[in-house]
C-alpha cells in the first residue's frame, strides 16, 4: 500500500489478464503492449491514496471471483483465456446497476489511459505527438519574438496576419495521415506478398 504499491501474486495475475484483454490490438500493429500497460497501470495505482488503492484491489478481486456469475465458465477470471475475460468484462460493463459497472470501468480507464498514451499507439493512429509538441514550442517561441512590445488590449488575439497567416497557423507541422487500410493481408509468403502488391498498385 501507499507509494510503494506493487501488484503481487493473485492480484498481479488478475491485472495481467485484464491488461492483456483490454490492451488495443490491430492486425497491422505487431507490438504486444500488455506488459507495458500493466506497468503503467501499476504506476497509476501507486499514485492513488490508500483508499483508492484498496478500491482497485477490491475491483480486481471482485471481477476475479464474481465474474463467473456474469459470463461463461466457472473458473476465476485470471485462469480464463482472453476471449472469456473480455466476454465476462463486457457483461459486467453492461450491467444495469452503475456501481457494478464501476468494477470494470475503473480498470478500463486505467488501461485506456496507459495504452493510448504510448507513442507507438499514437504513431500507429497517425499522431506524432512528441514531434508535434516540439514543433509547436518552437513556433510559439517565434511568435513571442515577433510580438510587438506593446500588447493590444484584452481580449484581442495577439497573432494577426502580420505575424502568421491564419491558414498557416496549424500547418507548421502536419503528421502523416493515419493508416486506414482498404485491405489487410497477413503473412509474407509469396502469394500474400503478390496480393498485397496488386492491392497497393490498384490504389
Amino acid at each position: 500500500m501507499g507509494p510503494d504499491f506493487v501488484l503481487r501474486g493473485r492480484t498481479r495475475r488478475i491485472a495481467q489478464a485484464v491488461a492483456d484483454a483490454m490492451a488495443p490490438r490491430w492486425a497491422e500493429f505487431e507490438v504486444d503492449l500488455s506488459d507495458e500497460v500493466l506497468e503503467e497501470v501499476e504506476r497509476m495505482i501507486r499514485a492513488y491514496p490508500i483508499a483508492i488503492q484498496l478500491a482497485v484491489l477490491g475491483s480486481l478481486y471482485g471481477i476475479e471471483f464474481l465474474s463467473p456469475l456474469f459470463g461463461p465458465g466457472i473458473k476465476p477470471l485470471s485462469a480464463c483465456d482472453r476471449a472469456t475475460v473480455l466476454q465476462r468484462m463486457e457483461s459486467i460493463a453492461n450491467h444495469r446497476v452503475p456501481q457494478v459497472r464501476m468494477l470494470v470501468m475503473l480498470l478500463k480507464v486505467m488501461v485506456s489511459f496507459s495504452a493510448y498514451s504510448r507513442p507507438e499507439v499514437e504513431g500507429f493512429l497517425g499522431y506524432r505527438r512528441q514531434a508535434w509538441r516540439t514543433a509547436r514550442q518552437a513556433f510559439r517561441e517565434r511568435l513571442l519574438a515577433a510580438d510587438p512590445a506593446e500588447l493590444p488590449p484584452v481580449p484581442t488575439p495577439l497573432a494577426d496576419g502580420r505575424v502568421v497567416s491564419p491558414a498557416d497557423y496549424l500547418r507548421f507541422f502536419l503528421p502523416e495521415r493515419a493508416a486506414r487500410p482498404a485491405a489487410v493481408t497477413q503473412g509474407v509468403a509469396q502469394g500474400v506478398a503478390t496480393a498485397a502488391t496488386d492491392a497497393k498498385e490498384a490504389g
Partner: protein
Amino acid sequence: MSFVATEQKPASIITPAETRGDLVLSADVVVVGSGAGGATLATTLAEAGLRVVVLEEGAWYPTREYTANVPAMLGRVMRAGGGTAMMGRSPVPYLEGKCVGGTTVVNGGMCWRTPEKVLDEWARGLPELSSARLDAHFTEVETTIHARYQDDGSQGGVNDAFKRGADALGWKLSRNKRNQRHCVGSNDCVTGCPSGAKQSTQYSWLPRFFAAGGLLYTHCKVQKVRTEGGRATGVSGTLLDPWKARRFTVQARAVVLACGAIQTPLLLQRNQIGKACGHVGRHFTIHPNIKLSARFSTPVDNLQGTHQAWQCVEFRNEGILLAPGAIPLAFMSAIFPDFGPRLAERMRDARYIATGGILVDDHGEGRVRLLPFGVPWIQYDVTDADQAKFVRAAALLAELYFAAGAEEVYTPFHHMPVIGSPDDIKTLYRHPPRVEDTEYFTAHIMGTCRMHAHPKGGVVDADGQAWDLPGLYIADASVLPGTIGVNPQVTIMALARLIAIKLADRLKRRVAA
C-alpha cells in the same frame, strides 16, 4: 509580469529539500492553496504590503516537465492521481489539480465573467457581489491572466467542425476568451500546458506575488487550523518530505483557506469549524457535463488545435451550454464505453473524431463530508430535471454534428451509445436515458462553504470571513453562493480579489489602531 514559462524554480518557492527539521514560520497572512483563489488573494495582499506565506500541498513543475504521458502526469499534478469520483446515482469522476497553480494548471483555460443574471441574484443578499462592484476586479483578473481570444488559425479541426454545424443551423456562438498567450494548439491543457502558453496562476499571479516579497512553501499538507481566544491564529500540518515526515507551523494574523470546494470543507470538518451553521459541505454544485463525439469523413485531428475556441450559447436561457472540447487520445479512449478490440477499432478513426461536451446548470445539491476515521465522502446525484436537460442537449449537439457533416455520433448513454443518423436522434426522446445509464464528468465544483449575509444561511460573510471563527477566511470556489453556469476561474479570482482588498484594509486598520 512574466508571460513566458520560467524554467528555473523561483527562489521564493521553497521545497522541503531546502529546509531542515520542523518549520516554524510567521506572517501577516497564511494562505492555504495556490490555485485560482489562493494565488489571486495572496498577490493582492502582498502588493498591499503585507507579509504573506502560501502553503501548497503539491510540487512545483517547470513547463518542460509537463509531458504527454497521461498516467504519469495524472500522478504528478492531480489530487489522488486523478482517481477521484463522487458517489451517487451515477458516479461522477472529477479532477482537482494538486501542484503549484492548483487546478489552473490543468483546466481548459476558459475565461468567462459571472453572468449578469447570476450576479443580480447574488447581489440581492450580498450587494458587494453586484456586477458594478465586481467590474474592476474582473478587468484586473482578465488583464493579469491574459484572458484573450485565440490567435486566428489556432482553433483546429475539432473547433472548426463545431462552428460549421452551429453556423449551418444558425445557432449563436460565443468566442471563448482563454488565459493564454499565443496558445499554439498543442492541445494538452489537461495535463499541463507544454509550451507555457496557458497563463495559469503559476505564470500570471504568482510572479507578481514573488515580486511583492511573498513566499510559497510546497509539499505542505495543512491538517490543523490553530485558534487562540476564539480567533484563527495560524495553521499546522505535515511537510510531505519524501524522506521523513516533518511538521510545520505558521503563526499569522489571518488564515485564508483556498483549497477548493472539496478540500476546504473537509479541512473545516476535520477541525470542527462551522458545525454551528450547519452549512459546511452542503449546497455542493458541480456544473456536470457529458461528452459526445462525432466521426467525420475527413480528419479533424484532435491533436492539432486548441481545446475549446467557442461555445454555443443559443440555449443559454435553458441552462444548456454546448461546446467543442479537443482532447488527447488517452482521454478520447476513456470517453467511449467500449474496451479491448471494439475500442481499438473505434480508435482507428481517432483522427476523424471530434469531441465535444454539454454543460448543464444543475439544480441538485450534493454534499462533502467526513465519514468515521476521517474518510472523505463526496455525494452528488444528478436530478431527473437536470437529466431531461442533458437529453435535450445531447439531441441538440447530435443535430449540430450531423449538420456539420458527421457520419455517426457517439453518446455517453449506455442504452444508445451510437446515433447513426439525424433520424435516430428522436430515439433519445422516445427512450430517454436514465441518470444511472449516463456517464458524467465535472471539473467545476463549487459552493460548499457558501457566502451569505446571515450566519444561519452560510459559512462565510460578505468579507469571506467565517461566521464561526473570526480571523479565518475562505477564498475559493466553495464560497460561491450558487451555481454560475460558466467556467468558474474568473469568478473565483474576482471574489478572491474582493476578499483580499477588504482583508488588507482590515489588517492595516488594526495596525494603525
